[in-house]
């Protein structure tokens, strides 16, 4: 799904850029003439001193102003003026760029640089490059998403420390776009920024704010509004552990225009949902082939759940993720018949085919735009800002199958099962962890609304591992591990199996085990992957680790927690952002280590029993005869904690880490 505020230019070709940057070409006439004087807005911006709070930043945006001019048909022309001062060598990459698609047009794009010693340069045609966009999937070098959208980037002349870059651009925005997402926070500070909305006479607008208190606009002319914000600090999460997504924390304002724009949030969500439903209307209409396939799949299914499993697993197993998006194709799916024939598509295509097949067997389902980064979709900030599409399946009133866990209730009491057909490995009824605790827009025509996505019980996700080992007197550990992975965790491991071959799988697993057992050799590795996604995935492997235990005089030291670390220590600084716990779940481990002949247990680590509202941890080591038994159960109950709970989280995780490092002291008799 097209994300209105995330540029998709990752899949550019660097080598081509490097090669071509060095190719001399005859000069062409400029788009904008040559050597224009520095405009007055830039002269004004130049007077802005570098704010003190920008001292630690690589660059600072002194001025950034958007003017959105809306014509009578609702089409926008966007002008942006921006001044960036480079403060440090690494600040040079803060260039200006403008993204545009097939139904958009850049009217003008100019750049000037004023160096620290006052020399002025203006970028020429050769300083501008266009790059295409896309995204690679898990397999390096193979894209899963390509787009017709391009980004025009200016490489400013004289882009050195102390220089200020001034950019001015004007772009005609796609005719279907009725929303401007104003990113009011960046990774670097912004000293002064503004947005103007110039509506046709009598035009409507609505604004909503995320991670920032609403700012009141000034009507600078009839139907012409201006918002201003000063001194916005940069948001840099690079050295903060277990943080939510940057987009979830960054402040933004969304503004909509047109007859549907409403300051009532429920009404605005409803309008956005209606727009989505209208856009996708008839896309899911089943073809005879789809109907036949769907009916064949559910033939003999004993109940509603079985029908869902048959159809969702068909989509998950047979529709490959790939798409080329063109213009509004970033939002609009392909027709279901086309997707079914080609067996590939993106998230909205998979949702379309799922809705189509469900419709063919009498089950109603709806589009649900979301973002796969928890916290980006904000119930209090209606917007189409998001990057993903999932499916809401309407449940019959009497359907209470306990396997259908990811259920939400709409305001009218109708219950919907939330399902992500793009996640090829999480079974229907469950929900990928990245979606839990977020919000989605139920695009159900006039019943459209934003809904909170459920946080599932820990029992829906996790692992159960057991290991039986023998420890030799020279410290060598040999043994067998049997593990079951279920829910989204099982889905992750199934994806790992899908995207690795035997060699990669073995190497990856050996590397994973080697994090705890650095000299390990995997003697065998086997997995059992049941066809039914709801069944746990099994891994069975045997290993040898020379010198697992270490002699210290007459002592032999052996870690009781053999494999796998769950500890996630946050950095040792005052916490300002929430703590992202990732996923709810329950992870259980049991290890038995047979002691070498002649050794007895002298000491074991103390048991750990922690129980909080967000997680619990119970671990204990016991000695029975010549066997050392370790057991722990780690349960996570929440997906996010506020920053104010940082100390609680640190204490909890420190105890987990201490337990994982715990040693048994063995003494020779």
């Amino acid at each position: 799904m097209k994300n209105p505020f995330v540029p998709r230019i990752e899949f550019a070709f660097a080598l081509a850029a490097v090669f071509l940057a060095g190719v001399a070409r005859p000069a062409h006439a400029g788009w904008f003439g040559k050597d224009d004087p520095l405009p007055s807005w830039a002269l004004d911006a130049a007077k802005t001193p570098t704010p003190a709070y920008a001292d630690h930043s690589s660059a600072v945006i002194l001025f950034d102003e958007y003017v959105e001019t809306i014509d009578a048909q609702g089409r926008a022309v966007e002008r942006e003026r921006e001044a960036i001062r480079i403060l440090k060598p690494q600040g040079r990459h803060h260039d200006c760029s403008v993204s545009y698609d097939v139904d958009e047009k850049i009217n003008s794009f100019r750049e000037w640089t004023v160096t620290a010693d006052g020399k002025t340069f203006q970028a020429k045609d050769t300083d501008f490059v266009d790059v295409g966009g896309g995204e690679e999937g898990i397999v390096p070098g193979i894209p899963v998403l390509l787009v017709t959208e391009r980004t025009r980037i200016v490489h400013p002349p004289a882009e050195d420390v102390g220089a200020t870059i001034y950019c001015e651009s004007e772009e005609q925005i796609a005719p279907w776009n009725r929303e401007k997402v104003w990113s009011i926070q960046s990774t670097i500070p912004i000293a002064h920024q503004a947005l103007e909305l110039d509506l046709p006479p009598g035009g409507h607008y609505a604004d909503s704010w995320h991670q920032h208190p609403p700012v009141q606009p000034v009507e600078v002319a009839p139907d012409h509004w201006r918002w201003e914000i000063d001194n916005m600090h940069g948001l840099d999460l690079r050295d903060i552990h277990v943080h939510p997504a940057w987009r979830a924390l960054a402040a933004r304002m969304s503004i909509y225009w047109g007859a549907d724009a409403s300051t009532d949030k429920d009404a605005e969500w409803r309008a956005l949902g209606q727009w989505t439903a209208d856009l996708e209307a008839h896309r899911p209409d089943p073809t005879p082939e789809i109907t036949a396939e769907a009916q064949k799949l559910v033939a003999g299914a004993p109940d509603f759940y079985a029908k869902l499993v048959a159809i969702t697993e068909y989509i998950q197993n047979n529709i490959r993720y790939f798409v080329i998006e063109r213009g509004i194709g970033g939002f609009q799916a392909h027709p279901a018949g086309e997707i079914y024939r080609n067996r590939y598509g993106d998230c909205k295509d998979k949702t379309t085919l799922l809705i189509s097949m469900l419709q063919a067997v009498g089950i109603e389902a709806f589009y649900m735009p979301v973002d796969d980064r928890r916290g980006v979709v904000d119930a209090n900030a209606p917007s189409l800002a998001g990057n993903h599409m999932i499916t809401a399946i309407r449940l019959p009133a009497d359907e209470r199958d306990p396997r259908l866990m990811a259920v939400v209730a709409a305001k009218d009491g109708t219950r919907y099962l939330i399902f992500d057909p793009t996640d090829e490995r999480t079974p229907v009824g469950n929900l990928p962890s990245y979606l839990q605790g977020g919000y989605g827009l139920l695009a159900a025509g006039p019943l459209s609304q934003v809904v909170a996505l459920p946080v599932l019980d820990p029992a829906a996700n996790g692992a159960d591992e057991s290991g039986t080992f023998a420890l030799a007197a020279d410290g060598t550990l040999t043994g067998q591990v049997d593990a079951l992975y279920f829910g989204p965790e099982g889905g992750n491991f199934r994806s790992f199996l899908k995207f690795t071959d035997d060699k990669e799988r073995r190497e990856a697993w050996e590397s994973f085990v080697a994090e705890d057992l650095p000299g390990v050799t995997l003697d065998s590795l086997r997995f059992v992957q049941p066809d039914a996604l709801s069944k746990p995935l099994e891994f069975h492997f045997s290993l040898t680790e020379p010198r697992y235990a270490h002699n210290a005089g007459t002592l032999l030291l052996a870690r009781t927690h053999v494999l796998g670390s769950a500890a996630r220590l946050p950095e040792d600084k005052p916490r300002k952002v929430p703590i992202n716990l990732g996923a709810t779940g329950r992870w259980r481990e049991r290890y038995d280590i047979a002691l070498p002949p002649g050794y007895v247990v002298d000491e074991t680590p103390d048991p750990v029993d922690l129980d909080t509202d967000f997680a619990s941890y119970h671990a204990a080591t016991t000695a029975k005869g010549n066997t050392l038994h370790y057991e722990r159960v780690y349960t996570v109950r929440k997906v996010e904690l506020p920053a104010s709970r940082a100390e609680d989280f640190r204490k909890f995780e420190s105890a987990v880490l201490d337990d994982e490092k715990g040693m048994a002291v063995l003494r020779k008799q």
Partner: protein
Amino acid sequence: MRKPLFLQGAFVLLAAACSLAARAQFQPVHPDELKMTADPKFPGADAEYLDYEESDSAQQHSQSYYARIKVFTEKGKEAATVQLPYFANDFSISNISGRTIHPDGTIVPLNVKPEDLVVFQNGAIQVKQTVFNMPSVEVGSVIEYTYRLYFNEQNQYFAGVLSIFQISPEWTVQRRYPVRKAHYQFLASSSMSVMAFPILPPGKNIQITPSNPGQPLYNNFSLDVTDIPPIPDEEWMPPLRSFLYRVMFYYKAVGDALDPDGYWKAAAKTWSKEIDHFATPSKNLHDAVAGLVAPTDSDLTKAQKLYAAVQALDNTNFSRAKTASERRDLKLKTERNAEDIWTQKSGNRNEIALLYLAMLRAAGLTAYAMQVVDRNRDIFDPSYMSLAQLNSDVVILSDGGKETVLDPGERMCPFATVSWKHSGAEGLRQNANGPSRAQTPVQAFSANAVKRTGDITVAPNGAIQGTLQIAMTGQEALFWRQRAIKVDAQELKKQFDREIETSVPEGVVAHVDHFLGLDHPDKLLLAIVQVNGVLGTTTAKRLILPGFFFQTRGGEPFVSEAKRLEPVDMRYAAQDVDQLTYELPAGMAVEGAPEDAKIPWPDHALYIAKTRQTSGQITVARVLARAFTLAQPGEYQDLRSFYQKVAAAEQAQIVLSTATKEITSGTTSAPVGTE
């Protein structure tokens, strides 16, 4: 417009245009191919090229491709996406057709129009890629497609260089998936001398057939290969281009020798002449040198002073190259020589190296240029008879018969040290007797050392506090000094923190306090690091600490990689030394400590660990000296065994107990040192 830019990925330049009659229609797929589920010759492969054909014709200015691919696994379904990058100004892609054949024989034709996407555009230059996705691909499917790449002859810009652009295909013989059978053909122009540079499996050769019997120049090249393994993917491989199976075609100038010895002899003379032309010291350069050195200076001192002078220039490989428009605005000359570089106080790494050569000569010293292949990118191969493979200039100073290789274009590189990329690198050099092929010296392990020392106070509960000193010489110091050019001091500290975060024990936090010697490449680079946190684990009676502070997270390479197909390339020899002293909590004594260890890999590497215990202190030291740079696959098991032993030894612990009696087994009271 605040949008992050991520430029990544790979690009295959389709800089050749050729021809071959494309398959007008697809042939029936053999039932055995539909039934097959794997190829026993390549177990675990996700997909396989059952057949691949490429035919290039300089005469027809076109190039035709055909591929038939079997999908074995879910991951192999990614073969359905076909990307064809090309220069849109000069080439076009057409005649695309394809189909998917299911295991039951059902055929689904490609009927979605391929998308033609812009990858990159700068002024009139446009790189595009045609993309299509094969329909209805399943595990077991056979994918089949063909297309043709045409050279647009009407293009005016390249009209003058058409003959250069149309005639140098590169056959990519080794691919992402194994190739069961492939056929390549190149019908080359007979007006010029075509050369082929093949890297092929043993026993495989290009066939050359005269297109016109009786003519002296052959121009019909072909190659048939079978059972080509996929592109290897292993850590620490030599540059991929140095061993990937491929055939590169290029043209020789009239009069060029056709044998490598003859070619390189002549090419070296040409190259040397061009170097001397660039580096001839002008009067202004003489004057500049006179102002930098004193007549009484020794030759070595003069060389050092001039080295410092060129190192101080703006090296655009480490700062920023001026854009073309900026250079025009500043009225800077385009054609450049050594004097221009000095006058402009700015140049790229090769220009600065040759400026240094010119200044040495202006000072009356004996100095030679040497141009090598950057070892990070490729390895010199004399059978590829082209100066294009040489890319990095270094300078050889001859002082009293002793030669020293210098790397002035490598910013912050100490005098008489070279970047590893230019060590053990082959190329051409000038000499008193004329230019010839040569290789730069390989660096000794002692030249690239990291020594981490520290004193850490341990509390009874395992909490620690202390200071580390990380001393770097050679390549590690060069790396951080060059990094410091590109970022400010604060960011450098953050980046260094992130680096050491991966090597200190979990629960311990390390922050750089300051650096010493960062701006002085000829001095030791020292990072002073503060550490604190909780180390080790406690029991009722004991405190157990990791014996080797920096090795608790593992990190030794090759430990978990059982087999090896390609050589191991460690880039440069090096030595790591750690020596940490723990100040023990009052009332606790050492009950057990890491045993002294000596793990040799004869003629390659040596590991030594020693422990020294005194009252209230225990010091653990280790040295890992790696004298080798390259190891062949046949040596891999020895290499792996060495690192496994090292990794296992480094898991040893220190046991402190409240008991008064000290157990000294495994420790020594001798001073800690290295052999």
